């Protein structure tokens, strides 16, 4: 029975499980959700997926700010008397049941007119009637059924975010033109001197001309712009020969049909632009549900409770906090400004900021920094600064956050394009000079033909399709890259820097083993209950690790600060703490933290805590060590130095006591010395280092939750695969080089026709799509093969 998964959320049910209508639930919260659903005939929810739900959380008072007109105004996209539309981000959306229940939300609240889920973005679009319901009650309803929306400062004023659809439009225009031009040019391929064809070919040609106009002047305009920018910066990027090719194709074709010399190359022109745009589109794989540009705004709440001088509580927007304001921070709420603690016992979790998972206790009068999360009870604070001036938020004023990493980086395609363009121009000039001497009438023909056939469509497609496909493969393997250029950067890395806490250690998997005499049932019960009362970090950890016990009232409980705890119940007097505290001489094992235990002054045994290093850390470092310089850059003290030395290869540099700013400077310094740095981090304290490094990878336990601004997000479960992933990027670069060779072969064949002056439209029309398609096939097959090896 103890192993039955909860019918609602799938968590294992323990002693506190609830049975309702023959179904087992892990807690009352899950049962309540089931009740709500069954009352409204919505149990279909459980038919699509097994245990799709989430346990609802306590949220007393958390959403009071949604009563405020000005906040609703900011969160809604449209407002009128009878209709309001709002978009909410719901991190829990993960399966088809979620879509179903959320789109049937109107059955739970009659005021909701319509809900539409965007699964990719994990958002819902709510349409409701404000006369029948309110945004607050909908949010509370969502929370009651386990779909708590996440509302942060980022939502503030970001309404109606513009979606850029230009590429789809351009692709549509090019595809439309390409298809129609193909049909129109087909009859002339075979050059049958047929009466009707002769009669109508002019009409056909001018129609093709008309269709090619939007392709050249709208769909292909990015290539002209980019080529112009490149030339202005004195760089021969890949868009220069492409723009040249398109121009020559268009001008020569127009001249040919105007002077009735031939049918022109409109089909090749349209095909070229279409394939190029297709490559662009394919590379543009985005993970809509991830954000790589997060700053403090996505962590911060939108509003906070303020205590007026009269003593009444009001909700104010975070941006309106002024120095001297009294604020109330509830359990699990984030402190938005630097402040002084006035009332209550604070237990602040700074893991967002430092990556350090253990909460710090603060007492009245202590200074609290923005970004900490209160984890126990309610506190009252007085703001010392406004939001923008707080210590944490000021980190974002560093220039690294406004710098675009892609600038100043020559990608492989552009690197080769320089030589390619010069070679082609040389060939064109030589061939033209030759024909000027031999047969001047053909010279112009040859010159344009060389530029047309050499238009590097296949080269330009190699990288987008290889990278685009690899991005998808990585995505399936839970390694999410911001864009394709990250792959290339990753292949060039020579130094790997790791943050310690949260990156190579895991927040969740701190473990402990027990050595010694077995505990009796009552002893275990007392142990669990005494740990329950203690707030010492080790007690909390141990409490989480021990199995569930019933709750009893302790007869006596005392915490000896710095030593341990003492508790008694039912004639059992338990001491938990340091070796000397329980009366045991120190044992040999000093590397790991231990907690000793005695019952009625008789020594029982010890719990040994293992530093929760991620599985495979050692192996990963050993794989990396022969190829890369390795550094651990930690914000913590040197306490773990010996431990890390044992675990990691000898050449790993260990640097401790690094503030966020120090980490950034460290990376900057080594980059100036020519290093290409991969930074692997997790917390906001790494944000500067992640931005400064060539590639910043954020490790995340749950990719849907938080990660600082970075180039890639790696799911923590795949941490040990990192070396394989880096290796795959190198293989991808090799695939691209091979496909370059392949496309050069096509160019050589094409150039033969061009230089000898026999480039017929039909040859170009066959060669261009053939080379493009075979490159696409080649790169796709190769990268898929690469992906197979990764799995």
């Amino acid at each position, binding site marked *: 029975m103890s192993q039955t998964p909860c019918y609602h959320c799938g968590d294992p049910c323990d002693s506190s499980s609830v049975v309702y209508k023959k179904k087992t639930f892990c807690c009352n919260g899950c049962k309540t959700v089931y009740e709500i659903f069954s009352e409204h*005939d919505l*149990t*279909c929810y459980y*038919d*699509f997926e097994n245990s799709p739900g989430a346990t609802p959380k306590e949220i007393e008072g958390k959403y009071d700010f949604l009563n405020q007109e000005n906040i609703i105004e900011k969160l809604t996209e449209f407002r009128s008397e009878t209709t309001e539309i709002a978009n909410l981000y719901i991190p829990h959306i993960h399966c*088809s049941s979620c*879509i*179903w229940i959320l*789109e049937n939300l109107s059955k739970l609240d009659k005021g909701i007119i319509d809900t*539409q*889920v*965007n*699964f*990719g*973005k994990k958002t819902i679009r709510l349409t409701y009637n404000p006369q029948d319901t309110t945004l607050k009650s909908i949010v509370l309803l969502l929370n009651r059924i386990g779909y708590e929306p996440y509302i942060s400062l980022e939502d503030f004023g970001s309404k109606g975010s513009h*979606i850029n*659809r230009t590429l*789809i*439009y351009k692709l*549509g225009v090019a595809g*439309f033109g390409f298809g*129609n031009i193909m049909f129109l040019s087909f009859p002339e391929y075979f050059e049958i001197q047929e009466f*009707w064809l002769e*009669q*109508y070919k002019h*009409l056909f040609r001018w*129609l093709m001309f008309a269709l090619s106009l939007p392709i050249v002047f709208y769909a292909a305009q990015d290539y002209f712009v980019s080529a112009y920018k490149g030339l202005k910066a004195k760089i021969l990027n890949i868009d220069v020969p492409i723009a040249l090719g398109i121009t020559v194709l268009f001008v020569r074709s127009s001249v040919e049909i105007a002077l009735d010399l031939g049918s022109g190359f409109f089909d090749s022109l349209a095909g070229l632009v279409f394939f190029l745009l297709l490559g662009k589109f394919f590379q543009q794989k985005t993970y809509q549900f991830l954000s790589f540009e997060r700053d403090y705004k996505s962590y911060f709440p939108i509003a906070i409770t303020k205590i007026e001088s009269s003593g009444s509580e009001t909700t104010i927007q975070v941006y309106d906090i002024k120095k001297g304001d009294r604020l109330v921070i509830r359990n699990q709420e984030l402190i938005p400004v630097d402040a002084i603690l006035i009332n209550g016992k604070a237990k602040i979790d700074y893991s967002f900021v430092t990556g350090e998972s253990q909460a710090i206790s603060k007492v009245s009068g202590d200074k609290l920094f923005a970004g900490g999360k209160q984890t126990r009870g309610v506190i009252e604070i007085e703001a010392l600064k406004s939001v923008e001036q707080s210590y944490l938020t000021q980190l974002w004023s560093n220039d690294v956050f406004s710098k675009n990493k892609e600038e100043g980086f020559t990608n492989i395609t552009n690197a080769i394009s320089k030589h390619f363009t010069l070679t082609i121009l040389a060939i064109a000039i030589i061939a033209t000079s030759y024909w000027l001497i031999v047969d001047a009438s053909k010279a112009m023909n040859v010159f344009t033909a060389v530029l047309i056939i050499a238009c590097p469509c296949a080269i330009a497609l190699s990288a987008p399709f290889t990278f685009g496909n690899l991005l998808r493969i990585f995505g399936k393997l839970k390694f999410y890259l911001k864009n394709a250029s990250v792959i290339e950067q990753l292949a060039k890395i020579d130094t790997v820097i790791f943050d310690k806490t949260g990156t190579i250690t895991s927040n969740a998997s701190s473990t402990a083993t027990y050595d010694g005499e077995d505990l009796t049932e009552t002893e275990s019960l007392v142990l669990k209950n005494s740990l329950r009362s203690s707030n010492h970090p080790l007690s909390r950890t141990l409490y989480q690790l021990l199995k569930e016990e019933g709750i009893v009232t302790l007869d006596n409980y005392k915490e000896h600060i710095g030593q341990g705890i003492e508790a008694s119940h039912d004639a059992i007097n338990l001491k938990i703490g340091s070796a000397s505290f329980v009366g045991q001489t120190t044992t040999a094992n000093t590397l790991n933290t231990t907690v000793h235990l005695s019952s009625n002054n008789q020594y029982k045994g010890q719990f040994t805590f293992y530093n929760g290093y991620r599985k495979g850390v050692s192996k990963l470092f050993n794989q990396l060590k022969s190829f890369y310089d390795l550094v651990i850059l930690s914000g913590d003290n040197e306490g773990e130095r010996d431990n890390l030395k044992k675990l990691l290869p000898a050449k790993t540099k260990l640097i401790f006591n690094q503030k966020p700013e120090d980490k950034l400077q460290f990376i900057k310094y080594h980059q100036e010395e020519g290093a290409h740095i991969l930074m692997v981090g997790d917390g906001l304290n790494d944000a500067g280092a992640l931005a400064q490094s060539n590639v910043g990878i954020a490790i995340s336990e749950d990719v849907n939750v938080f990660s600082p601004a970075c180039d890639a997000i790696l799911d923590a479960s795949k941490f040990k695969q990192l070396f394989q992933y880096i290796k795959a990027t190198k293989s991808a670069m090799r695939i691209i080089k091979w496909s370059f060779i392949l496309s050069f072969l096509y160019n050589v064949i094409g150039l033969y026709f061009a230089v000898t002056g026999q480039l017929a439209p039909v040859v170009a029309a066959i060669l261009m799509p053939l080379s493009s398609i075979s490159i696409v096939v080649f790169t796709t097959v190769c990268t898929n093969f690469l992906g197979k090896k990764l799995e």
Partner: protein
Amino acid sequence: MSVIYVILTVSVIVGIAFFIVFLFAVKSGQYDDSYTPSVRMLFEDELVKDETKQSIKTKTD
């Protein structure tokens, strides 16, 4: 044989009509979310099935 002009005109008009439909489709956001509709499509049946099941249940109850 001027019928070819008629045919051409018709085909161009049809082509452009479809193109305009495509533009409207993009503009209305049809291409923004390419996953959810594929799941949503399957729900209608499930819902009906569930309702019939329920009615049978109430009969037997």
